[in-house]
C-alpha cells in the first residue's frame, strides 16, 4: 500500500463533511513524508501508524457525539418521503396524462400499484445509498443529522441496509419506539447494527 492509499483508507472511515478528514489527511501525509525523508521504509511507517480503521476510530474518539433530536429525525424522514413522493407523483401524473390522451390505452390502472411499490422501494433504496455514501439523506442534511457507527466512523453498506429492514418489514413504528428510552436515542435496528444518528452543525459534530 502506498502512503497516499494508506491515508485514503484512514479518512475513508471518517464521515464525509467532517473537517477532521482534511486535518487527518494533511497530518498523516506530513508524517509519512517526514519519516520517509529520514530513510524509513513505508512498511515500517504504516506499522507504526497501525490499522487504518483503528487509527480513524482513535481520532474520532475525541469527537463527542450528540444524539439527533427526535423531532428533527422525524422531520427529516418526512422531507425525504416528500421528495420521493413528489417524484413518484410526477411520474404518475405524466402517465395519467398519457392515458387520457390514449397513448397508454388501459395500462394506467395496473401501473398505479407499480408506482406505489416503486416509490416505497425507491425511498428505502435512496436512504440506503445516501446514508452509506454521504452519511445522510437530503432531509437529514437539511436538519443537521448524520448517521455514523457508535464509534463515530462511517457506516458500512451492510449496516445501511440493515438499518432499513423495519421499512421492508413494515414494523418501523415498533422499531422507532425504542428511541425515547435508549441512552443514545437509538432505534431497535440502530442498536442491532451499532449505528446512531447524531446532530451536526455546519460540518462540526455538536459538542456535548
Amino acid at each position, binding site marked *: 500500500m502506498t502512503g497516499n492509499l494508506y491515508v485514503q483508507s484512514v479518512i475513508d472511515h471518517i464521515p464525509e463533511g467532517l473537517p477532521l478528514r482534511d486535518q487527518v489527511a494533511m497530518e498523516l501525509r506530513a508524517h509519512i513524508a517526514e519519516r520517509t525523508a529520514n530513510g524509513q521504509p513505508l512498511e515500517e511507517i504504516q506499522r507504526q501508524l497501525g490499522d487504518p480503521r483503528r487509527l480513524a476510530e482513535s481520532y474520532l*474518539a475525541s469527537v463527542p457525539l450528540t444524539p439527533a433530536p427526535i423531532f428533527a429525525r422525524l422531520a427529516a424522514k418526512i422531507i425525504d418521503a416528500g421528495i420521493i413522493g413528489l417524484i413518484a407523483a410526477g411520474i404518475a401524473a405524466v402517465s395519467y396524462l398519457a392515458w387520457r390522451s390514449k397513448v397508454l390505452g388501459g395500462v394506467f390502472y395496473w401501473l398505479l400499484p407499480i408506482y406505489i411499490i416503486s416509490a416505497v422501494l425507491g425511498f428505502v433504496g435512496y436512504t440506503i445509498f445516501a446514508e452509506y455514501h454521504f452519511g445522510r439523506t437530503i432531509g437529514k442534511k437539511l436538519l443537521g443529522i448524520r448517521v455514523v457507527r457508535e464509534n463515530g466512523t462511517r457506516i458500512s453498506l451492510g449496516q445501511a441496509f440493515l438499518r432499513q429492514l423495519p421499512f421492508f418489514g413494515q414494523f418501523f413504528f415498533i422499531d422507532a419506539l425504542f428511541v425515547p428510552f435508549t441512552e443514545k436515542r437509538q432505534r431497535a435496528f440502530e442498536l442491532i447494527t451499532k449505528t446512531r444518528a447524531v446532530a451536526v452543525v455546519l460540518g462540526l459534530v455538536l459538542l456535548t
Partner: protein
Amino acid sequence: MLRENGRSDDRSGIERELKRGSLELIVLHLLEAGEAYGYEIVTKLTTQSNGALGVTDGTLYPVLYRLERSGFVAVRWDTPERGVPRKYYRLTVAGREELARLKSEWNAFATAMAKLLGQERPS
C-alpha cells in the same frame, strides 16, 4: 507455559494502560520545553526515556488531536517550498495549567503507590 504467557500478557496490559493513562501528561511535559512537530515528539519520547516510554505514531497523533481540541496545545503549519511540511504543536496557557494539574495528580498517585509498596507485608 500457558500460565506464564498469561502473566506476561497481564504485565504488558498494565504497562499499556499506564502509558495510555499518562500519555497526555508526557506529551504536555515534552512540549513545555518549546514547540515541536509530531515526529520530533515521538523521537524525544523514545530517546529521553531510553525506549521505555516509546509509543507508536498511531497512538500519539490522536492524543495530539485530543489536546488540540481541548485547547491545551495550539498548532501551526510550516510548509517550506522545499522539504517536508510540518505541523508544530505548542503549549497554550490552558495547556500549562493542565500540565500542572496532571503533574500534581501523578505525584500524589506515585507517592501513594510508593508508600503502599514500601510497607512491609502483613504476616
